[in-house]
């Protein structure tokens, strides 16, 4: 009885969210006394999966098997799961997991839980925690089918890489009979050095308090000093001050970084819903009554146009001293 982890790549390298999923899968395998096998999609560095406890990697080396065409990935997973006798399949709940895991569930009849935040409790069934109501609550969900699929919330577990190593073998799968007819015409963005929001550990975010898009220089400067990813509140994206993909919250991207710095954002309930999983929240707002202070760990009551340049200076000094 083994656990199969579906591992996707970006520019040939294992995605961070997949590495987290692999670490999770290895723990599940250890708890049920099975082997942790990863199915990686065209990975150039598949051996890294050994450092999080994976025993064996089956690496698909056919670039047509990618998340762009979920049916082909599902075919590869079914073949691999049959070969290794997998009872549990683990995904990261990223764009790949969202495209592929539900399809696999419908095809195989295995129950699926997404957004998972805990290891399974197998005392009575197979019960995992997941976030619901955009992080305002959590639920314990039992998977009733014999075979189970879980897709885990990025950044919910943290990575602790060790010394282990995994054997890597090529995995051939025949997808010639599958014609979903999807063709990729172009890929835009996504190749910069900036960590995408759902995976980012440090996020600097700003809202309508900044008055206009021309004032974002100091926000980007802070992100640059910290190596953080920038985000914004919904109205800021809606009026076009910032791109839509930066919008965080209940109807935007849900994030859970180690550090979330919110500048000139009031902290409306819909905003909080997407960011309250952050480990540490810093709020900079000139209004001491701003609701965001109730959800913050550290607060600065002050004018962003004075506080942010000062904070940037302090951060720069800190970085110079601490490397």
């Amino acid at each position: 009885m083994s656990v199969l982890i579906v591992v996707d790549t970006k520019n040939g390298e294992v995605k961070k969210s997949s590495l987290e999923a692999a670490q999770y899968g290895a723990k599940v395998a250890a708890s049920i006394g099975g082997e942790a096998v990863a199915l990686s999609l065209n990975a150039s560095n598949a051996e890294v999966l050994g450092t999080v406890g994976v025993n064996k990697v089956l690496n698909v080396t056919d670039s047509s098997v990618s998340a762009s065409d979920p049916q082909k990935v599902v075919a590869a997973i079914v073949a691999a799961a049959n070969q290794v006798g997998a009872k549990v399949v683990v995904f990261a709940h990223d764009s790949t997991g969202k495209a592929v895991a539900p399809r696999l569930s419908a095809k195989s009849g295995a129950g699926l839980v997404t957004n998972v935040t805990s290891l399974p409790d197998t005392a009575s069934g197979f019960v995992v925690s997941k976030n619901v109501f955009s992080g305002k609550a959590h639920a314990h969900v039992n998977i009733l089918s014999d075979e189970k699929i879980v897709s885990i919330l990025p950044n919910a577990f943290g990575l602790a890489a060790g010394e282990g190593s995994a054997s890597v073998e090529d995995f051939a799968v025949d997808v010639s009979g599958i014609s979903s007819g999807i063709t990729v015409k172009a890929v835009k963005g996504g190749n910069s050095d900036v960590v995408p929001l759902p995976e980012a550990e440090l996020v600097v975010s700003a809202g309508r308090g900044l008055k206009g898009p021309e004032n974002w220089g100091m926000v980007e400067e802070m992100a640059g000093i910290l190596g953080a990813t920038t985000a914004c509140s919904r109205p800021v994206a809606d009026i076009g001050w910032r791109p839509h993909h930066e919008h965080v919250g209940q109807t935007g991207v849900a994030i859970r970084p180690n550090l979330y710095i919110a500048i000139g954002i009031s902290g409306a309930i819909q905003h909080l819903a997407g960011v309250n999983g952050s480990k540490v929240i810093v709020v900079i707002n000139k209004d001491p009554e701003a609701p965001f202070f109730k959800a913050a760990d550290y607060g600065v009551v002050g004018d962003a146009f004075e506080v942010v340049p000062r904070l940037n200076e302090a951060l720069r000094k800190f970085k110079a001293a601490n490397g």
Partner: protein
Amino acid sequence: MKILVPISKVPDTTSKIAFTDGDSKFNEEGIQWIVNPYDEWYALVRALELVEAGGGTVTVINVGDATSDPVIRKALALGAHEAVRVDVNPADSYVIAKEISAYAADKGFDMVLLGKETISYNGSEVGGMLAEFMNLPYISLASKLEVNGDTATLDRTTEGGVEVVEVKLPLVASANKGMAEQRIPNMRGIMAARSKPLTVVAASGGAEAKTSYVKYGLPAPKSAVKLVDPENMDELVNLLHTEAKSI
């Protein structure tokens, strides 16, 4: 073009989330129900734009009991032509997808356009399952959708970027922010919605839940905020480094 838009009923975004019956059930008391924002603002509006431009019909479908009817009427008020409700407890995504596919099987829809996720259960599950049950291609998290003849071009959101894909109809796609602009229903739409058909169909009988929600909980309350002097940002940096250990 015939487009099917699955819509779900979710608590208003300002709802206070609480549970009853030993934390085993969502407390619906005093809850205002709305159409899930992704379904209404993006999937439904884009579907309406497509048929406004090229002709056709938009059918909305909901899996649930009669308490869904007001939000279904809202979708009709926005301009959907007809509505269907499958009278089944939407126990989990598997059941919902199975019931929608059972209904859609012989109707010849060119496209199924749904939301990227519900803001209640945050599953992102129904679309992919439905595509598999219907044996159709699935484009998830689409922030743009254009149709030209029998071919659709979509922007699929990935981490930090988009992938432009082309695919022949019919297809299933889930709508992300950016696909359309929210519309507000007007009086005429609200009046017209009253006479539009809302057909209630019985369960297909073939769907069984694969998961069961056993218990709910709320996050631990946050401790009080620590205020830092706005003149002293070195202090904040120091706290973030030594106390919070986040930089």
